[in-house]
């Protein structure tokens, strides 16, 4: 089970109160995670990665295990602690004013 923590605005949009838990088949990658997340919560499509290119939006970051995974490839495996559900995968709005 993968634990995903969304930023507050996306939790509101998806109407989830806390972590989202996902069961993924096969290799656990960012692509697989977001495919599953957007499938369950279609309103999140386009808010974290581009509809067409699937590239991460510029002001969205992905953290886990105290590492910045934002620049990892979409098909790179996620850390084992994330795969085992010991650590959450964090979707973060980049820190800035506004």
């Amino acid at each position, binding site marked *: 089970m993968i634990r995903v923590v969304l930023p507050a*605005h*996306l939790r509101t949009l998806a109407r989830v109160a806390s972590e989202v838990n996902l069961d993924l088949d096969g290799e656990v990658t960012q692509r697989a995670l977001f495919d599953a997340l957007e499938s369950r919560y279609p*309103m999140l*499509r*386009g*808010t974290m990665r581009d*509809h*067409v290119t699937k590239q991460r*939006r510029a002001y969205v970051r992905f953290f886990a295990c105290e590492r910045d995974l934002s620049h990892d490839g979409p098909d790179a495996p996620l850390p084992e602690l994330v795969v085992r559900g010991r650590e959450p995968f964090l979707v973060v*709005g980049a820190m800035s004013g506004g």
Partner: protein
Amino acid sequence: MSSVRVLVGTRKGAFILEADGKRHDWTVNGPHFGGWEIYHLKGSPVDQNRIYASQSSSWFGQVVQRSDDGGKTWEPVDNRFIYNGATGTHRWYDGTPHPWEFARVWHFEPSLDDADVVYAGVEDAALFRSDDGGRSWRELAGLRQHRSADSWQPGAGGMCLHTIIVDPKNHNRIFTAISAAGAFRSEDTGATWRPINHGLRSEGIPQAEAEVGHCVHRIAMHPRDPNVLFMQKHWDVMRSDDGGESWREVSGNLPTDFGFPIDVHAHEPHTIYVVPIKSDSEHYPPEGKLRVYRSRTGGDEWEPLTDGLPQRDCYVNVLRDAMAVDSLDECGVYFGTTGGQVYVSPDSGDHWRPIVRDLPSVLSVEVQTLP
């Protein structure tokens, strides 16, 4: 008794202001979508409980919200605005070619005869349409693929399609305006377009009377007289009496002819309103006095409307989509400011009062007149 519902989009959420026909005592609901930029909300004239809202942020992009109960509850609908066909390039600020990139929806224009049909004007400039209440969108690509499009440039706020007007007497005829490309008209429900900028003169472009390149800020029309169009351009207030074929300046005695919104009285097709702003770099009222100007002659002759508006130390702006009128017997006029005030005049502009004073910066104001 009739009532009004004012839909206010701000930099940090949407607000819904409601009052009975006296427009004296108001309830304020919101913020809806707190923390998000709400560029525009607009209700369907066919089903006034149907409201579309453009919700966006630099972080999370575009979301489209739809309400079917007058704004009490909302449902996210489709947010895929994919350009149709070859994307092409327009001209960037520095003059180099720049690929079209979707940024946000600036304006929704619900159909006059079908609550499920709605047009969306977006940045980078293009027109989209939904036939299923926002559950899917398709681009009417003839506009973006106009032969002049590779020469269009963004205004300071982005290259936005901000004005969409459907001719109430001929629904095949649609007017749009783009900053900074100009005004365009379609006679075939958006399939093909041609520029309608003859008579506009803009000193800020190399060829002042060019076919395209004008920074049109807003166009307004009275539904009874759809061949008469009023335009607030970057500088100059303009008027067309032939559906945009030609324009003439009607700035007349305005203290400055720079501004953003322009609107038409609900019952008097030649009574129009603007909010003069000092200049293109000084986006505040001249002399620190917030004045709406009214012309009862369709331009040229203007009178300042000041009663109830701040007449000293006022340095707010009123953006292009932030003025609206209701259609009660005594026409109400509304506008919102970048300082977060929303003002109402329940008597065609003679007297004003703030409905609210301290909202986030106001991006848009629309009014629904309810039975």
